[in-house]
């Protein structure tokens, strides 16, 4: 391919052929990968197939996946939110501060969710209100929100959460199904319905595919984007409640680097980083894959950092495969 593939009618570096078939094949590819990893895990370690072990493994991805669902919608609409991990930190810090003041669990939950919503509203206002690029704004608020946590906490840690609060991160709903896993399943259904079965979801796709066209066809672009940033904020607040409850303490470095893991999860799930396409089932599969990889490597005593090599390679190859495949098909067609 000596000649450039850019043609006048073609927007540069944008995936083409985003038909249902490609997505279907993407998700089936993910499913195959997930099954292979599952098989590999069960062969690699006799402890893997124990229901309680599997249940423990879900904690590797449930909190990140909650945010990933909302992030998927944001990315499909053509934006990105890199401040989610810092929102977790700020919400956790606020809850920890409230504990020192003697607040109890219901108030803590309310505070966690409120901080998430407020942070999301700040992002949404800056991005839709002032029309600023989301990648830069959320890099800014990422520093700002975590910076506020550092100012409040310094190098301290908040502990002493009430016993009833620990249920969110450590409690079980039924048998081996933890509250977090149940929440993950419920949210997957909710976000799946919102994205794939409602007008709102269709509008999100429309904005991501062609914002101007969406605007002229009567979609309230700014309002919808604002709501999407509220979603990521709220989910980060919810994840913060679960994570803080599971760890039982708050440090300013809580959830460090999660924004990139969440984005990786979303992209691995087949959501086009440039917007316009992607599905919730794909994100669910990506969450399961990342969780199982983490767990499997853990069983084999492989350090987490080596696992990140695997995740990185997986990310690039999963994105590259459909592109290479499409190129090959085009070459055959000529």
């Amino acid at each position, binding site marked *: 391919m000596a000649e450039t593939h850019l043609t006048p009618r073609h927007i*540069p570096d944008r995936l083409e052929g985003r038909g249902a078939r490609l997505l279907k094949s993407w998700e089936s590819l993910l499913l195959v990968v997930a099954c292979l990893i599952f098989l590999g895990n069960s062969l690699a370690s006799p402890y893997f197939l124990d229901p309680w072990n599997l249940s423990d493994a879900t904690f590797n991805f449930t909190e990140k996946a909650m945010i990933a669902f909302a992030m998927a919608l944001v990315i499909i609409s053509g934006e990105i939110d890199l401040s989610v991990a810092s929102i977790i930190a700020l919400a956790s810090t606020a809850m920890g501060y409230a504990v020192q003041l003697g607040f109890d669990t219901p108030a803590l939950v309310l505070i966690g969710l409120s901080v998430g919503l407020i942070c999301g509203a700040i992002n949404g206002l800056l991005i839709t209100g002032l029309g600023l690029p989301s990648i*830069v704004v959320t*890099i800014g608020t*990422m520093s700002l929100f975590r910076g*506020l946590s550092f100012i409040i906490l310094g190098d301290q840690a908040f502990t002493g959460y009430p016993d009833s609060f620990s249920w969110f991160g450590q409690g079980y709903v039924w048998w081996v199904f933890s509250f977090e896993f149940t929440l993950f399943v419920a949210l997957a259904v909710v976000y799946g319905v919102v994205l794939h079965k409602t007008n709102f979801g269709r509008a999100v796709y429309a904005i991501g595919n062609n914002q101007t066209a969406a605007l002229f066809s009567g979609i309230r672009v700014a309002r919808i984007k604002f709501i999407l940033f509220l979603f990521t904020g709220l989910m980060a607040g919810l994840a913060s409640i679960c994570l803080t409850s599971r760890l039982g303490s708050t440090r300013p470095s809580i959830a460090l680097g999660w924004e990139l893991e969440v984005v990786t999860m979303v992209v691995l799930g087949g959501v086009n980083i440039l917007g316009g396409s992607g599905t919730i089932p794909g994100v669910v599969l990506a969450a399961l894959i990342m969780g199982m990889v983490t767990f499997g490597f853990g069983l084999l005593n492989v350090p987490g950092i080596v696992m990140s090599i695997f995740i*990185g390679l997986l990310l690039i190859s999963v994105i590259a495969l459909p592109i290479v495949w499409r190129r090959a098909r085009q070459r055959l067609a000529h």
Partner: protein
Amino acid sequence: MMANILRNRELLLVGAIAVLLALITWRFPPFVVPANLARVYNDTSILIILALGQMAVILTRCIDLSMAANLALSGMVAAMLNAAFPGLPIPLIILAAVALGTLLGMINGALVWKLDIPPIVVTLGTLTIYRGMIFLLSGGKWINAHQMSDAFKALPRDELLGFPVLSWLSLVMIALVFLLMSRTALGRAFYAVGGNPHAAVYTGIDVGRTRFFAYCLSGALAGLSGYLWVSRYAVAYVDIAAGFELDIIAACVIGGISIAGGIGTVAGAVLGALFLGVIKNALPVVNISPFAQLAISGLVIIVAVAVNARAERRKGRVILRKAEAV
């Protein structure tokens, strides 16, 4: 007209830094003595070098999130070379670090160019891969000061005409990148590709190839910074410069380099980095907790984006003015 706006951007930033220095002087006069300012510049040198590379990439409408990981990997290899062969001349080690950095940049560039994968995804992937490679290479062990030769550690600190070599190196890099941007076809191509990729294609510029070279440049500068970082702080381990990729992007954003591509100058990147450097060095002396640094950086980024956004209104015909204001 455009040149005016751009010049104003840099002037605005110079003004902002002047105001910042004035405020610091009011609280702590010794901060602005020349010797201390030279120290602040020296402390910011590595960030400046990295911001120059990121600038080239952002100009072409891409982004490089893997620069800090590249720095850490190249730095680790430089430190390991030095620990294994103490007799190896330092210039050779620097060359190795730059070569490795360039290679890592080429990998990013090739994925963006040949496979057309969105840059943010590519560099997100390579960021985790490069960090993991450091662990595989070093087995998670640290390389400490006593394992490094004196010559290896001394170079950035050696003084030349009263200034450390580190400062001189960053000045040389600024000059080189300035010449590249203003005097070569490639430098012009960076702007053309980011400003309007279609137009660039019609004028015969290969968009992918130009982006590839931008990544090579950012890789090479990250490799050089790798050596400088480990020799200056006299330690190498997996997590050096963790999260620094965001400081680099912040420097560029504050410097008025548009994330949408095609707008930005070498002066802007340098001033953006210096702005962050002044804040970082001034906080302890004006009795603001260093813990506030992150929050202040965040605020500065948001303000900078808001200020620069006005100059970046999408060029093109406005058909419906009302729709624009949604």
